[in-house]
């Protein structure tokens, strides 16, 4: 994982996005990270493919949350 996904996974963890109920909207996350939505989307595609996160559509918005593997990977950067 490069620095980009490391920051992304860590951000999702500290914001509490580790269940469908607490999934974060992508536009909201992009604004918190100071990223453009298309750039974030590309980053999310990578971490989703790696099994670290899940994207879901809720109430017409695309949202994202960490998987169990994503939580452990995010934490492993600090252990």
């Amino acid at each position, binding site marked *: *994982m*490069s620095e980009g*996904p*490391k920051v992304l996974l*860590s951000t999702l*963890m*500290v*914001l*509490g996005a*580790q*269940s469908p109920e607490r999934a974060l909207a992508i536009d909201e996350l992009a604004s918190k990270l100071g990223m453009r939505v298309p750039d974030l989307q590309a980053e999310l595609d990578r971490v989703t493919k*790696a*099994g670290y996160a899940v994207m879901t559509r809720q109430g017409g918005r695309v949202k994202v949350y*960490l*998987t*169990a*593997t994503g*939580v*452990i*990977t995010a*934490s*492993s*950067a*600090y*252990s």
Partner: protein
Amino acid sequence: MLCWEYPPRIIGGLARHVEGLSEALASLGHEVHVITLDFPGAPYEEHEGSLYVHRVPVSVPAPSFHSWVLLFNHFFEKRAGQLAHEFGPPDILHIHDWLTVPAGVAAKHLLRCPVVMTFHSTEASRSSNSPSTESAMVEGLEWWGSFEAARVIAVSGWMKSEVVSIFKIPPEKAVDIPNAVDPLKFEGAADNQATRRRWGVEDGDRLITAVGRLTAQKGFDDLIRAYPLIKKSVPASRLLLVGDGYMRTELERLAEQLHVRDSTTFAGFVSDAELVAALRSSDVVVVPSRFEPFGIIALEAMAAGAPLVVSRVGGLAEIVEDSVDGIKVEPNNPSAIAVATVSVLSDREFAARLATRGEEKAKSYSWENVAKKTLSVYQEAARGTRYE
């Protein structure tokens, strides 16, 4: 017991330690409450015999990892307070690493009970090459914990020396209690062929396994650099890396550059059963860490009957007796890793001898012993604490 990781949330050896210790304390008849973080799919509350696990959700978002740690400590503190009302105040609070120091210290003064702190690692070792303001905070919390604790436990003799020297605590305040392993969890007739096929190991291939977080500390890049050298002597082989982490892409790229990507399997995180099967079906397990306060994977490999090659660092150097129950090599040295690994793979009798002695040694590291030693530390802590 306060800790940020507890199975199934397993980041490193800390989770295994708290699990083994808590279960052993409970089986000795003590009531143990573990307060830890919630985890996807795990229940908030678990209870078996006198062992209670309380998984706490952190329902307030934080702007960074370090402020999140301070935040989840508030939630731990609240849970400790609730449990004190429900079950009565604890006789001892046991905190693990810097991550639970704020909650532990607050609970000590609010509930008026002594604190014991276990060091599984120190920030000085982890961040030796990259000091930062965050590191300064972590080191400050480590010092605070060691100061407030009535007794300090370190997971190896090396770790104890580090803690005494860095935090200037009296040597008699600290004790080293090594980690342990439950040999029963590593027994059983694994279907080696099925396991090996699942990892891409072809018939006749020798399997070289390494397990851990894919971080710089673990030295997996050195093992990948060693692998082309190993393949020169043992061409029919496969390298299996179990675990995940922020270096995965970099390590995959390195394996590609060295033309060993096709014979290297990145397994990611695996279940406990898969880990046991992987260890049991390995021809050699390599632990190439650059630093390792204890290195519980070495004990697990021994318990699984796998011959072992380890770096001569920290707790690993204490666990393994060179050429008796494993081979020790200098860290940061791919050539040394290659030579040692080939010596195991090319001499089956030698490998079997190392494995047999390793299995015997693993049996002497029991969680019951750890629990008994820890209980005597608790008793000393309870006798020695003053609140005035």
